[in-house]
């Protein structure tokens, strides 16, 4: 039952996402917001692997997104490297930094680890802000080119227009989602889950807890790097503010809101988090206060977010149905 529910939701999201340019074709603003939301959904998927499945909290994850973003941006802007290799290089660079950070820090107990990720995020932000030669400092790197289009026969694909770029981000998100799906549904996913639920038990059953945590961390850093790269390609500029502490915290909030530990949780969360304020037209402070209360309520009453609430409601409904059937 559970499986079919999430499968239906996932498919519905996919179809809606693919058709969005047709549905919202006349409203570029909605498409713009949706594109931005998907740029956040990608690192949120990475965070889901780390937080939702493995149970590790990272408060500096947008730092890794920044590494990916600047790497991709510099390669495309200054060296004219095509999009795909640049994006992969960005992911690789973010993953590499994740590895360097993860090896010493993942041995620490959970509280310490959280603080260190926070510190690492701050350090990276400082570096983005001050390594002027590489990152352009506080001004950032403007004028990042959009990926080149290509043609299949008479059919031309371009990424300069909003619709074109939206479809590109959508494709990348779908690929990252597919990666998440394959990993989570595999034995590897079950091992990650075991680490979250009971480290001692996982170890006693033969899981190398450290190696699994490290793999999840590096992978989620690399995915965050992809997200960061897509974001700066979309905005056509890389600036340190995109990767500051608040952004990392936003990432956690999106995931909690959508539902950590659910495949579609990060996507639901990112869309809700980015889109909702656009339609909730009040002062930004009031909006953030509202989100603060939402977080408190989620922490207290619905730690599994929107997906968890939906699932609970669905189970309740189907149980009632069953009871009725049994009665008659």
């Amino acid at each position, binding site marked *: 039952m559970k499986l079919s529910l999430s499968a239906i939701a996932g498919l519905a999201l996919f179809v809606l996402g693919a058709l969005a340019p047709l549905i919202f074709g006349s409203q570029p603003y909605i498409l713009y917001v949706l594109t931005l939301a998907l740029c956040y959904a990608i690192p949120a998927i990475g965070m889901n692997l780390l937080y939702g499945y493995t149970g590790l909290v990272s408060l500096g994850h947008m730092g890794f997104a920044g590494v990916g973003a600047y790497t991709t941006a510099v390669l495309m802007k200054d060296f004219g490297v095509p999009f795909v290799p640049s994006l992969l290089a960005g992911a690789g660079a973010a993953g590499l930094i994740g590895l360097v950070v993860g090896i*010493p820090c993942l*041995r620490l107990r959970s509280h*310490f680890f959280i603080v*260190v990720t926070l510190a690492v995020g701050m350090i990276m932000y*400082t570096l983005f802000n001050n390594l002027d030669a590489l990152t352009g400092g506080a001004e950032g790197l403007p004028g990042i080119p959009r990926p080149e289009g290509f043609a299949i026969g008479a059919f031309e694909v371009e990424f300069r227009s909003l619709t074109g770029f939206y479809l590109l981000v959508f494709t990348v998100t779908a690929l990252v989602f597919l990666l998440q799906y394959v990993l989570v549904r595999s034995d590897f996913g079950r091992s990650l889950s075991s680490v979250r639920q009971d480290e001692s038990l996982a170890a006693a059953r033969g899981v190398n807890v450290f190696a699994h945590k490290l793999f999840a961390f590096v992978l989620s850093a690399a995915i965050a790097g992809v997200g960061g790269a897509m974001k700066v390609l979309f905005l056509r500029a890389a600036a340190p503010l995109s990767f500051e502490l608040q952004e990392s915290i936003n990432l956690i909030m999106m995931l909690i809101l959508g539902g950590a530990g659910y495949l579609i949780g990060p996507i639901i969360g990112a869309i809700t988090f980015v889109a909702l304020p656009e339609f909730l037209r009040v*002062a930004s402070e*009031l909006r953030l*206060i509202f989100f*603060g209360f939402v977080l408190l309520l989620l*922490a207290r009453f619905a730690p599994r977010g929107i997906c968890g609430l939906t699932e609970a409601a669905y189970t309740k409904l189907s149980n009632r149905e069953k009871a009725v059937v049994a009665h008659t």
Partner: protein
Amino acid sequence: MATAILEQFINGAMMGSIYVLMALGMVLIYGVMHVLNFAHGVLFMVGGYMAHLYFFNLTGSYPLAILCSMASLALIGMVLERLIFRQLRDNLRMQIVASLGLILIIQNGVVQLWGPHALQMRPASVDALVRVGQLSFTVQHFVIIGVVALAVTVLYLFLTRTRLGTAMRATSQHPEAAVVVGIDPNRVYTLTFMIACALAGLGGALLGPLFLIFPQMGDAPMLKALSAIIIGGMGSVPGAIVGGLGIGILESLSTLVIPTDYRDTIVFGALILMLLVRPWGIFGVRVRGEH
């Protein structure tokens, strides 16, 4: 050079004292309840605003304003513990989510109430200067160091000489210990939160006049205090003191050789280095021979 070092040393000791106040509060909460309260920085900031409010609107006296600010924060601490953190005990991830929520509510709530601009308050101690050799510092520098030293002493006496303090220390080692001494552990938790928040309020009230009072004023001290309690040894009160002062002095002295922009990087670098070399901290206890 010697004067420059002395200047940065005294500046560092002053900032370090502020970090000590923050770190002590966080260490108490962590030790007794195993909660990492990331919202401690915004409570510090509220302390600054409270002092401003009491100073201009009610008392007109700086010392009285400080005390009222501490009392208000203690009250806030009580509410937070009862309503939020007590319900989330032993749930590390949700504690963090809740404290992130608190940061959003409080920080933006303050912007709503007082506006985004910095406030200023100048009690006499900020304008009066003390000459040390060729250097001059505000009296407030030494007020901060002195008041913090006093607060630390009082806290120490409380923890070691009173029944409630003993219960707090006992609870931090063994949750059931308070029950054995005949004290309701929930009272210990509430009290711990109240004391910790009052210390944050004191910090905000002390630092506010020297710099400015603004919504983000607590962010950096909170991060430095976090580093301090880890460097000192998670859960260790002496560690929080040594760590806090050490970080204040280190970051201040570092500006002599490294651009100011990298000051935070130095502190966090020291933190990461410490975790690599001695993850259990200066005063922490290492657990040996276990996998």
